[in-house]
């Protein structure tokens, strides 16, 4: 909580007549509750792995306030006999700006020494991020690690705190990696997809070597708090023992910029810029490459950098491809060149540019597999080459094998050994890992389109690559394979197989908007509210903090006509419809760490919700508000649903906030009229 807000609250308590000791106890209570919110103290971001090579790996973590950072490692979990030198640990800090209100304990951290540390651009004030480079490791070896504050061990002694270094470049052995995209919602589907993958992998018996996120990992705008709750906390069990290689999505692009290298995305990840893991040094974190065994990976920023061949990124791509000597070439980024999921690659400029400018360079460089997201669907192509047109994509003469690519069906797609230009690549859109799904049509180059949540597992072993779509239940839903052997004949099919045309369901069934997985209750259902019924308040003052609501009735929810208690006195609305107005205070200790607020609410028929006097959500109310509310629709469904509140980043404050709701019936005779709200905060 910021200092000024604390003082305001403190003075409010003072005004309320609490004694001095009670006030201090109250203040203590605030701190204790803040402590209780973080069971991992002092970590505010648990240790996770980044940027590995055959001899090096990075461990990153965050704490609230500084610690004496120590990382120990060894080849047994109970014997961490090596220590990372302090010089190999980079510390970044978020210390606010001069004059910014902050807790005294953070103010005292603004020493010249701390202020000279590299900046964390968007983390809560008081956050310290540590980036430890563990070097001098042996290739393809399992190690265990622990994070300490001086001599105090902060991470558990567990075989899960481990990592495996990469094998030497070119090493042929089985590799397995996980690919997911558009997952960062903090909703149940995200967790199910993660668990589905874990279950499948566990049953199969071979763990992941690493994973790739193709972007949109922190909805809605890639803020630091969204990264924390919707990425780091969601994937902690996978992040602590396998490296995630990221690509930036458009949602992260709201707060992070490739052209400046600034923002929560760039704070969160360590990626190679100087060819630390092979490839050609890009000199920037926006795009990079790395080798893993006999595979070369390329990551591009498809969101906000020049995609044209004359731009620096495309030039680097060309130069990187010149040097790549691995047996396999896999590229990933966010915007798909071919999709008819929730996005349309024939209509959207950024998708067309990716197809027109970047794919030719990759395909003439011998790319085998392209992994993207953005479109909330699973789409997997046939073996494809050369479809770069800015017009609508067609399949004729661009498909090299129109089979299903499944070793159990039409057989694997065949290419020549090594990296060979224009022998075809498989395109996978994996934007189905958490966000709600969508489809506008069928791309003619796709062999498989699945509108269900899941992710992709890829196995590479020697000359064979197998991709599997594993759904949220841990069930394999698609399999394709590429085999690179000899020099098979390349044919271009003038009349390739075409996927059946997609017909949108006439009446789409809409699933309810899911609530966040983890939440704290700020106002419980059945809570006490100040209520006005049978009359309309004047103007909008009643929605604001400071409004004197002492004349309003103090009553417990639910408020409904069935109980008659609140609504019997008259229904003074222009159209004679029943209306109801409720308001109540709630407290938030640190507004800038709140990812999302939402109502768990049963209502009929329309509601408008205000936060500190600002409208943040309206449902089923057409125009205006209060006595002038118009266009109130009948709520056709019923029961409690989750209704997220918008713009909380703008309107939520540290300390006391006011939530106000007006509820209107659809018609005068509405028998279902009523309201039962609870307020949830995403944890």
């Amino acid at each position, binding site marked *: 909580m910021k200092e000024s807000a604390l003082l305001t609250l403190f003075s409010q308590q003072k005004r309320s007549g609490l004694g001095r000791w009670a006030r201090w106890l109250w203040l203590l209570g605030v701190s204790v509750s803040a402590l209780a919110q973080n069971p991992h103290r002092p970590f505010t971001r648990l240790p996770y792995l980044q940027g590995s090579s055959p001899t090096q790996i990075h461990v990153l973590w965050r704490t609230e306030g500084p610690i004496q950072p120590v990382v120990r490692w060894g080849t047994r979990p109970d014997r961490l006999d090596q220590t990372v030198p302090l010089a190999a640990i980079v510390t970044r800090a978020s210390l606010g700006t001069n004059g910014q209100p902050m807790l005294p304990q953070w103010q005292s951290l603004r020493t010249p020494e701390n202020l000279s540390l590299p900046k964390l651009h968007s983390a809560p004030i008081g956050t310290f991020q540590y980036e430890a480079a563990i070097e001098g490791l042996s290739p393809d070896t399992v190690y265990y690690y622990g994070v300490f504050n001086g001599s105090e061990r902060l991470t558990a002694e567990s075989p899960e705190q481990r990592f495996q270094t990469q094998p030497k470049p070119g090493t042929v052995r089985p590799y397995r990696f996980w690919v997911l995209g558009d997952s960062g919602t903090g909703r149940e589907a995200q967790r199910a997809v993660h668990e589905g993958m874990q279950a499948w992998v566990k049953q199969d018996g071979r763990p992941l070597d690493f994973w790739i996120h193709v972007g*949109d990992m922190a909805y*809605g705008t890639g803020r630091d708090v969204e990264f924390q709750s919707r990425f780091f906390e969601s994937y902690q069990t996978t992040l602590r023992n396998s490296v995630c290689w990221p690509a930036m999505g458009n*949602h992260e692009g709201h707060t992070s*910029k490739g*052209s*400046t*290298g*600034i923002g929560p995305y760039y704070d969160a990840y360590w990626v190679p*810029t100087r*060819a630390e893991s092979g490839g050609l040094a890009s*000199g*920037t974190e926006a795009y990079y490459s790395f080798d893993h065994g006999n595979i070369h990976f390329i990551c591009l920023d498809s969101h906000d950098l020049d995609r044209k*061949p*004359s731009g*620096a990124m495309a*030039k680097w791509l*060309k*130069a*990187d491809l*010149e*040097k790549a*000597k691995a047996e396999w070439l896999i590229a990933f980024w966010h915007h798909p060149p071919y999709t008819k999921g*929730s996005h349309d690659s024939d209509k*959207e*400029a950024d998708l067309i540019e990716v197809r*027109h400018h970047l794919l*030719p*360079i990759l395909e*003439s*460089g011998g790319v085998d597999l392209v992994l993207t997201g*953005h479109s*909330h669907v699973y789409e997997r192509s046939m073996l494809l080459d*050369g479809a*770069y*047109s800015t017009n609508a994509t067609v399949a004729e*003469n661009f498909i090299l094998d129109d089979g299903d690519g499944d070793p159990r069906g039409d057989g694997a797609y065949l290419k020549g050994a090594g990296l060979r230009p224009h022998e075809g690549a498989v395109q996978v859109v994996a934007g189905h890992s958490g*966000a709600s799904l*969508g489809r*506008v049509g069928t791309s003619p180059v796709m062999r498989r389109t699945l509108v269900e949540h899941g992710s992709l597992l890829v196995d590479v072993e020697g000359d064979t690559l197998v991709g599997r779509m594993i759904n949220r239940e841990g069930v394999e839903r698609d399999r394709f394979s590429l085999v690179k052997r000899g020099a098979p004949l390349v044919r*271009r099919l003038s009349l390739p197989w075409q996927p059946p045309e997609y017909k949108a369901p006439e009446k789409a069934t*809409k699933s*309810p908007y899911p609530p966040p997985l983890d939440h704290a209750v700020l106002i419980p259902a059945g809570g006490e509210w100040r209520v006005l019924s049978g009359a309309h308040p004047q103007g909008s003052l009643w929605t604001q903090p400071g409004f004197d609501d002492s004349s309003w009735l103090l009553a417990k929810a*639910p408020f*409904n006509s*069935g109980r008659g208690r609140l609504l019997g006195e008259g229904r003074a609305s222009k159209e004679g419809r029943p209306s109801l107005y409720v308001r109540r205070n709630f407290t938030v200790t640190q507004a800038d760490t709140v990812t999302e607020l939402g109502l768990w609410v049963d209502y*009929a028929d329309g509601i408008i919700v205000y936060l500190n006097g600002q*409208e943040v959500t309206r*449902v089923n109310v057409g125009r205006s508000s209060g006595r002038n509310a118009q266009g109130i*629709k009948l*709520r*056709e469904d*019923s*029961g*409690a649903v989750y*209704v997220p509140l918008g713009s909380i980043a703008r309107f939520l404050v540290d300390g006391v906030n006011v939530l106000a709701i007006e509820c209107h019936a659809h018609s005068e005779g509405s*028998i*279902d*009229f*009523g*309201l039962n709200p609870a307020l949830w905060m995403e944890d």
Partner: protein
Amino acid sequence: MASIGTRIGWSLLCAFLCLGVARAHDSPEHQIEALSERLIREGASADVLLERAIEYRVLGKLKEAARDLQRAVRLAPSDSLVLLELAQIELQRGRVSEALLWARRALQVPGLATGERAAILMIRSHCRAAQGSKLEALDDCSEALRWNPQLISAYLERSAWQQRLHRPHERILGLEEGIRRTGAGLLVAERIEALLDEGQWQQALEAIEPELTASRLQGTWKIRRARALKGLSRRTEAERDLQSALEEIELRMPRVVKDSSLLMDRALARELLGQTEAAIQDYKLAAGCGGGEEAIEAGRRLRRTRSGRPLWPWRTQRTTQH
């Protein structure tokens, strides 16, 4: 509220469209619709206008994007992100003086992060380039690098201006500085281009050899080596490199829609072999599929020189091609 069910009304879903969390209808059109509703409901804010402008830009509706950004600037005159975006959009629309104005405004924002300042300076550089102010465009690249010495594109663009303005020594030193600071492989290649442009054949050749050995795809490097060899009067070896580069390019060239980076290479190889008309044709094709100013300039230069002047041995006027 008597009976409780589970389905949710369409209007409720519409209300959610305005929120950040991913939804089925994630397309720019839907986003614009949702953001518009949000602007009506919450009143105009710079953040939401910026978001909507970005969606308009994705759809190529630059005029609408600029209009939103201008509104956003009125609401948040010191929002550097909005100003940066607006300058960029106006430049894209060809409204150079407006772009310049917004870039200047952005540079006056107090407390700009160094990375932001560098990005804005690069936009100003592009504006000045569009106005034909070469020296000022160059100065902006240099200033951008003072604020963000990691900015690879600024090194490349500065190098291009230094070449056009015949400042070979500065160019090579600047690139060496960039290599030291960033380690970027692209700058290593650009330095070799600078050595070739400067006629430092032997030095270039020595730098090319290890790169060529390390390369799987050798066409581009063989063309570079051919330039050095020609400079050293080793014509037969140079021609062998060029022929071999052309063979590789043919193997890699896509059939229908062409790849401008390969076309640029083929054009240069053909130019060096004296196949002027074919080279001009390739530069033209490259310009038509994303090759940009570089391809246009190269084509123009070649058309000027085809009137009898010797092409060989030859110091190219190429810009940032590597």
